């Protein structure tokens, strides 16, 4: 059997609140990577942004994290991670990737124990004990094509960060209606150069669903049922979130 590259998918964003669309990104990306035959997605991580990000209408991180946690109760492979939201300052996405990559490397021996057969564990291991047939794990940033577009927004991203993301880590980008990711790539020298590290995934079930639309519907008293998990809707109601009209 050919050895597959283990992959962890990391999604950064506001998750204000998390919606079914966010959760779909993970499912669609995992299916796509598996069907390449090259990858084995071992985990998905949702990392809600820090409160200091200062985005308009951003609910407190503790709520956003709690909602993601509730949404993921039924998932056996995606988890929420609070590290980013617990930092004192807003931190750049590339730093979040670095952090999770070092965590991944640290946890590797444990993961390997959990997955490898007995015969393998009998092999004496020295130094960086990566058996030759085990591919190095990869951490990839999962995003919608709208994020790819923001790479063009002046002053939003540092060029060296974009380069590090696509060179060292890689992107899995799920295309969204109204976006042409191929065009965004061709318009950027860095993205073009590292396009082999950018996986474009077509989402056959298109949707206009966004957290903004959810917040709008909520403050108008409209139903948002079936657009996000029931547990998240109950949490929003219990904590009176998103009641105020945004200015």
């Amino acid at each position, binding site marked *: 059997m050919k050895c597959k590259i283990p992959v962890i998918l990391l999604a950064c964003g506001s998750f204000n609140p998390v919606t079914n669309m966010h959760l779909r990104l993970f499912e669609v990306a995992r299916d796509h990577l598996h069907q390449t035959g090259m990858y084995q997605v071992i985990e998905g991580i949702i990392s809600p942004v820090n409160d200091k990000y200062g985005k308009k209408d951003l609910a407190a991180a503790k709520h956003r994290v709690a909602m993601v946690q509730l949404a993921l109760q039924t998932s056996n492979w995606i988890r929420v991670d609070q590290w980013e939201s617990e930092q004192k300052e807003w931190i750049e996405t590339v730093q979040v990737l670095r952090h999770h990559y070092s965590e991944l490397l640290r946890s590797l021996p444990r993961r390997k124990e959990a997955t490898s057969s007995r015969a393998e564990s009998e092999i004496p291991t020295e130094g960086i004990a990566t058996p030759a047939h085990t591919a190095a794990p990869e951490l990839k940033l999962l995003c919608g094509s709208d994020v790819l577009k923001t790479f063009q927004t002046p002053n939003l991203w540092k060029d060296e960060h974009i380069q590090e993301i696509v060179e060292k880590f890689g992107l899995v980008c799920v295309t969204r209606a109204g976006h042409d990711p191929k065009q965004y790539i061709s318009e950027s020298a860095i993205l073009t150069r590292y396009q082999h590290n950018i996986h474009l995934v077509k989402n056959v079930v298109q949707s*206009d669903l966004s957290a903004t639309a959810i917040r709008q519907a909520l403050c108008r008293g409209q139903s948002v049922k079936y657009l996000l998990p029931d547990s998240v809707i109950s949490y929003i109601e219990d904590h009176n979130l998103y009641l105020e009209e945004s200015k």
Partner: protein
Amino acid sequence: MENLENRTEVVLLACGSFNPITNMHLRLFELAKDYMNATGEYNVIKGIISPVGDAYKKKGLISAHHRVVMAELATQTSKWLEVDTWESLHKEWIETAKVLTYHQQRLEARNSDDSEPDSASLVLPGGKRKRTGDAQDLSEQKPSASQKKGPPQLKLLCGADFLESFGVPNLWKLEDIATIVGKYGLVCITRSGNNAEKFIYESDILWKHRNNIHLVNEWITNDISSTKIRRALRRGQSIRYLVPEAVQQYIEKHNLYSSESEDRNTGCILAPLLKAKQ
């Protein structure tokens, strides 16, 4: 929500394959309810899902039993939606106009029953399976003045593709269309850029009853369809978050959709078309 008592009570009925039921089907109900209630004229008190019977003979249609169970699982978390098996339990395919008539009669029977508190329970054949004692549920929701008001209005809930199916030759009898839009009324979920208005304009019968057709705009569009769900399943792809969790688990457990199931009724003529030939 002030003064609900002066409003016309509405029950929404959705007919279709529900093969399988998806979050999109369930959203149609939520959108329709919000819209109707926001007019200030209506008070939507109930939504009924009526899966079509096996005799419809649509390609890829799995057994009504499974489709009904999935719809029931999907509505478990809803306070106002329920599944009705009357249509699906029939050996023969039943025209939508007849399904409406059946439900209208039930609502009328229940209404007169409500004003006679001593009458025995209204057991009609093929009733709902969702809850026992839901006659009480209904009376709780109803304002006390219900005996003066008469039964709620029954309206057919549909998507824009359903509306446009009225234009498919031989699929619908003209008198059935007249009954549906004339006697009952339609609540149709559409998208901007969709030609529902033009379609109504171009049809004499729909134009005549245009005031009985409520077009509801779906702002947060959503391309989930049962066809896409079945395709994803055949390809081993995830359908999570596109259908309710309980439905996804049921599909997996019973391995409901495969290339074999998709071949069901291949070469069959759709029941309404067959009937039109006879």
